[in-house]
């Protein structure tokens, strides 16, 4: 705690805070151009200079920590002059095209130029020949670029892609992109203070000030990131209510979005009228139906409605993917003594030691990837990835890759427990640890005992270790024991554990619904497959609103209940219309927000009372945190089962990093196709060539895919995209298949 004074106001700084951070937290304005709150300051603009008593010259507030008793002045004639001169230099040769520039109206350069009364360009330099570039979703105009380095900072530090860099050359310097590394997340577009980095899709489509911001949560993965849908009417002839989403923005100074969130926004279901006939048919179907099958692309409130329908009419609720997760979490909480897992994204980004097991970091949950990248860049964290497939695209993030045999996850977690569980835990589960055969596990998983020693050695002096578990484990034949071991590790070590929910609201569904094992026909499906289909994709028997047309809440990976606002109008029938007819009454779906099961940790807070804003210090105040409940039960770990061999042609269900589901597939900007991607070795072994069409049986269904050779992949396992298959299955993500070539 450091006491000092800014503009005669006494303030207190925490250790590690800079003067600028304290000033911003306290609401004292210091102008900046290159400062980005979520990255380490690069101190290139010098706008944030302040005066400190007793110090000659100016002090850069962004990277200077205060000392006890310091007296800081943020505004004086000399500072104004200094800042004005900086703005004059920023304006050298800057094209006078605000009239057409997309950034006009929300441009940092424009704002500060006006703020410091720079009325004319007083200097010029010989203009260099530069090239405008387009890298997929992002367009770069070097003439507009002020080289503030915000984009390279996010790309390196937050995303961890290290694609953007500065091509040096004095006045000719420009940003360049190592396109093979670029994951098309668009973070650079968001942070660009001028119009240099622009979205190729949005370019020249609308002026910023015409768009209305609708704050909501991203619907594509369990991170449920905070975002704003920016909407406007369609064309000049449209009625005020006919709107479309033009783009997605977010509070880019503090938060991030991935490519799917930023560009996968146009998945709405356009319905202009109520289809009464379809509605009455569906109601009839509900009379006979025995089962409701649904996906986890659903709000908490809708899940609650389904649960109430089950209680009232005895429907079976089927959601295989969420059920697998639910069972996993339940087994975990019995072992750990707590109803919820202990880590969150913020904890990961602040950790200094991370082990991932059973998840594909690059695609399963982008925010976990971002958080790990931040941990590596900021805290020099050690990240160990345990996965059978080597992934070239995250080599900047992963410190060490432990390549294990498919199916040996149970043994690996047991070895991690052996390494890290403390004496008390070992005593508690003595039988289990006694029976552990390290030699066998090492042999079968192909991770040697010396590698585990290395892993344990790296943890020395680390203060905040995390363990990240992914979707490979929930459908593992030994999922229950794996979950228990994770619980034991959480309880008897300093590890925090994150269990990534496999789909958008998997965590919410698993808490709210009592899910059943087996379906009985006839089946009513909500965004899934069945005899009568309610679909937000517009292909079913009755249209439903998509997640950008609904109010409601999600339960996110951070164990938070976050609000979702309707960005676009929807005129058709909603789930609440059906439930009203079936005796579960409500006026709006959000009436149920405060009724979500309190025994599971939900709070009695009405939807309209859920906060959604940021504090000056950058802290997000959004929704509320679930209460974790204490669970008291004796459990015993089972002995590790024999590790099965996976031979022949093995595929791994894994999506391209921008695709998550049929909704991202519907989005126009996201063009990744559903392919079978493998390494050259895989192609040779399976005797297929790139570009060939293949067929194989998966989960009892015949699937045909185009095969593509991906040079970034290594090893004998191919990636099979599954976003186009509708609802996620609960099948183990690795499957042995028979490939057949088709012409």
């Amino acid at each position, binding site marked *: 705690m450091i006491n000092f004074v800014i503009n005669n106001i006494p303030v207190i700084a925490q250790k590690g805070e800079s003067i600028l951070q304290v000033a911003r937290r306290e609401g004292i304005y210091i102008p900046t151009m290159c400062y980005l709150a979520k990255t380490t300051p690069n101190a290139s603009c010098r706008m944030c200079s302040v005066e400190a008593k007793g110090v000659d010259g100016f002090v850069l507030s962004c990277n200077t920590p205060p000392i006890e008793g310091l007296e800081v002045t943020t505004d004086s004639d000399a500072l104004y002059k200094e800042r004005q001169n900086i703005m004059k230099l920023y304006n050298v*040769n800057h094209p*006078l095209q*605000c*009239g*057409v520039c997309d950034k*006009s109206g929300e441009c940092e350069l424009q704002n500060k130029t006006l703020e410091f009364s720079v009325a*004319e*360009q*007083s*200097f*010029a*330099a*010989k*203009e260099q020949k530069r090239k*405008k570039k387009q890298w997929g979703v992002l367009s770069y105009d070097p003439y507009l670029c002020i080289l503030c380095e915000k984009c390279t900072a996010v790309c390196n530090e937050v995303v961890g892609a290290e694609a953007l860099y500065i091509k040096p050359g004095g006045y000719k310097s420009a940003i360049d992109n190592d396109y093979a590394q670029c994951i098309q997340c668009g973070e650079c577009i968001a942070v660009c203070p001028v119009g240099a980095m622009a979205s190729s899709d949005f*370019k*020249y*489509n*609308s*002026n910023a*000030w*015409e768009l209305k911001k609708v704050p909501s949560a991203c619907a594509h993965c369990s991170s449920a990131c905070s975002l704003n849908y920016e909407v406007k*009417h369609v*064309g*000049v*002839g449209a009625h005020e209510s006919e709107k479309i989403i033009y783009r997605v923005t977010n509070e880019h100074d503090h938060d991030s979005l991935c490519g799917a969130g930023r560009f996968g926004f146009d998945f709405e279901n356009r319905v202009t009228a109520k289809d009464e006939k379809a509605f009455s048919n569906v109601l009839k179907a509900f009379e006979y139906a025995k089962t409701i099958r649904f996906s986890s692309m659903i709000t908490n409130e809708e899940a609650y409605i389904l649960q109430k329908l089950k209680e009232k009419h005895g429907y079976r609720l089927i959601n295989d993917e969420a059920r697998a997760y639910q069972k996993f979490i339940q087994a975990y909480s019995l072992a750990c003594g707590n109803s919820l897992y202990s880590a969150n994204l913020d904890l990961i980004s602040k950790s200094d030691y991370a082990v991932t097991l059973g998840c594909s970091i690059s695609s399963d949950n982008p925010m976990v990837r971002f958080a790990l990248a931040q941990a590596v860049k900021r805290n020099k964290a050690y990240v160990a990835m345990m996965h059978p497939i080597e992934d070239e695209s995250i080599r900047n993030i992963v410190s060490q890759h432990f390549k294990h045999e498919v199916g040996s996850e149970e043994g690996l977690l047991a070895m991690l427990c052996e390494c890290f569980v403390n004496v008390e835990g070992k005593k508690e589960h003595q039988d289990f640890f006694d029976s552990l055969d390290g030699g066998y596990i090492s042999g079968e998983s192909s991770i040697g005992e010396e590698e585990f020693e290395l892993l344990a050695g790296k943890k020395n002096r680390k203060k905040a270790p995390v363990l990240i578990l992914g979707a490979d484990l929930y459908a593992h034949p030994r999922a229950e024991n794996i979950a228990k071991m994770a619980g034991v590790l959480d309880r008897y070590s300093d590890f925090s554990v994150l269990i990534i929910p496999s789909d958008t609201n998997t965590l919410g569904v698993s808490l709210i619904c009592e899910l059943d094992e087996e379906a009985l026909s006839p089946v009513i499906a909500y965004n899934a497959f069945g005899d009568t289909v309610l679909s937000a994709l517009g292909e079913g028997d009755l249209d439903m609103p998509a997640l950008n047309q609904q109010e409601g809440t999600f339960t996110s990976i951070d164990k938070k209940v976050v609000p979702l606002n309707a960005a676009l109008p929807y005129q058709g029938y909603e789930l609440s219309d059906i439930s009203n007819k079936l005796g579960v009454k409500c006026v709006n779906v959000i009436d149920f927000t405060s009724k979500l099961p309190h025994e599971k940790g939900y709070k009695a807070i009405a939807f309209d009372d859920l906060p959604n804003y940021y504090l000056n210090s950058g802290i997000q105040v959004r929704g509320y945190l679930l209460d974790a409940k204490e669970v008291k039960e004796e459990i015993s770990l089972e002995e590790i089962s024999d590790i099965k061999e996976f031979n022949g042609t093995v595929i791994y269900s894994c999506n391209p990093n921008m695709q998550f589901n049929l909704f991202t597939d519907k989005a126009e900007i996201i063009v990744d196709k559903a392919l079978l991607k493998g390494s050259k070795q895989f192609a040779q072994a399976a005797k297929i060539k790139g570009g060939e069409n293949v067929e194989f049986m998966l989960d009892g269904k015949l699937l045909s895919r185009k095969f593509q050779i991906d040079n970034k992949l290594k090893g004998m396992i191919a990636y099979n995209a599954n976003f186009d298959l509708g609802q996620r299955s609960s099948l183990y993500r690795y499957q042995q298949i028979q490939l057949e070539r088709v012409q």
Partner: protein
Amino acid sequence: MNNEQFNNRNVTDGYYLVDIEDYPTDGWGKFKRVVKRTFRVELFVGLWVVLREMIKFDIHTVSYPAEKMPIGPRYRAVHEMKRLWESDTERCIGCGLCEKICISNCIRMDTKIDENSRKVVSEYSINLGRCIFCGYCAEVCPELAITHGGEYENASEQREHFIMFEDMLTPIDKMKDGKQLEFEGFGAITPHEDERVKKTPLAY
């Protein structure tokens, strides 16, 4: 501009006071005025003026709509979209300032990127039923693209009455003939503007 002519505030030059008799204040005075007016037959003075002018056939009435008065260049009637003299292409760059400034919210526009990577207006409409012809759009336009014209006859059968970009744009044949008129109203360039322009100090 020379302001001297406005600076002379001595209004006595060329003006004279009209000789008006004082109003009567008492009853007797009022009675005298009535008697005076009654016996001077003032009515016929007026009738004589009318008769005289009728015989002279010096008629000032305009027989609208067959005949129309010339309209001042600064008159603010239905909008026009001007073209560039240099290239005959439209001046509008799609900056959206007219849409933003419009206080009656009657301008709506849509822009897009064209094949030459330039911003173009894809759709543009003004609802003349809402427009109050305040002239802000013409004033704010950085390119002198949207202006007011002299076309004031815009009666229509319904209150909503839209005019589109194409209808406002100077027809290309008129442009080729050099007949596009510049607007002189608010927001237009003033005389001697060339002398006041500051050049951007670009070195090339």
